[in-house]
């Protein structure tokens, strides 16, 4: 029963994150959002060794985001998985520890991979005239740069706090 409740709460959390992303985060920024909540949640789960949970969070959240997307289905999902795949690859092959600098670099490069894949898709779809030719890449690159920094800072912060919590540093 406990397990069922926990999994149910986890699914609710993912749905809440999706709602926050499309109905709040997306509406606050004039051009493009500077934080991707679903990607952030997936990075966090993977950073604290809950990889299956991170993958499933991304699958559910990315699927829902693609439903509300004006691009062909699959663009957002594939880009998100490329980002997460990059994060996992770096975490388990290049940086095998959880040092702060490793977290910063992992999150930065993974976000760059996500944005690069996404923008590449947009560019290809533009050539095929599936996406409007009015899509502006310069503001997209600018917001991507900000997103990289924001993700790197937030993931490092969350991972550090989680590690401290696990080690009972905050226990009275």
């Amino acid at each position, binding site marked *: 029963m406990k397990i069922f409740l926990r999994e149910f709460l986890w699914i609710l959390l993912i749905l809440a994150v999706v709602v926050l*992303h499309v109905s709040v985060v997306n*509406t606050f920024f004039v051009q493009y959002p500077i934080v991707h909540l679903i990607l952030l949640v997936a990075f966090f789960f993977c950073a604290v060794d809950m990889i299956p949970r991170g993958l499933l969070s991304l699958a559910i959240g990315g699927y829902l985001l693609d439903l509300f997307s*004006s691009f062909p289905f*699959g663009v957002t999902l594939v880009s998100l998985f490329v980002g997460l795949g990059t994060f996992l690859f770096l975490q388990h092959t290049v940086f095998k520890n959880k040092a702060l600098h490793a977290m910063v670099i992992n999150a930065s490069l993974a976000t760059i991979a996500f944005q690069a894949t996404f923008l590449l898709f947009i560019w290809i779809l533009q050539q095929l005239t599936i996406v409007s030719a009015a*899509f502006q890449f310069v503001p997209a690159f600018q917001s991507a740069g900000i997103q990289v920094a924001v993700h790197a800072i937030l993931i490092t912060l969350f991972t550090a706090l989680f590690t401290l919590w696990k080690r009972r540093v905050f226990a009275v």
Partner: protein
Amino acid sequence: MPYLIDNTRSIRWWHIPALLIALVFLHYTHILTPLENLLTRLIQPIQSRVYAATQPHTLIAATDASVEDLSKQELITEYKTLEERTQQLLIENTRLRTVIEESELLKEQIAFLEEHQFRYVNARITSVSTENISPTVIINKGASEGAILGLPVVISNGVLIGIITDVQDYSSEVRLVTNVDSRVSALLQNQAQSPGIVKGEHNLSLVMDFVPQLDIVSVYDSVFTSGADPLIPQGLLIGQVQEVKKEPSSLFQQAILKPFFHQTEISIVSFILP
């Protein structure tokens, strides 16, 4: 076989692309459509409330204010009320002039107006599209309520705000008229009833193009739909002329329009059924 993590719940590298391909496949084969509809319906009520709560005018109302701030807010509220009333009067005037002109021409046109009583379905905006790169919003009504591609979407006083461009069972995507990809056939409320095409500019404003060079276009002229587009009836208000651009060597002139809505201020809309 390379493992990503070394425990009983290990994940192989190929699980990720396999999961991805499975999800995309399941979507395009419509196997997961019932689940998609269920999830959409589940989160839509919350989405619409969250979206409405984060819009600027509601945020202003929610803050605590001193006496001085209340006075300023009252002025702002009063100004907005008067602006809406002016807009309603302008629309009503436009509609009345249209009815008078048509009834003077032919009897059948009066019957045409009586026949074409607009049937609406009300809907609520629940979010903007995921990428938020162009004016596109999601509403909480879809094919189950009669939505189809190309239907016009209006706000409660008959102003055209967009066209439905994607339909699912319980939600639809609406491309706003200010979107650079939007094209609507329109007429000017001037003596010549000049025709033209209204398109979005910079995702913020409207331009009416292909207006005959010799027609007289004045600032504050209203622009409404011509009815030439399929599924879009005549007489829906689009915008008001702010500036006229004329080049003597060109066959056509352009009018810069001000739309009658702000994207951040609309949450309740209606789409017109055919």
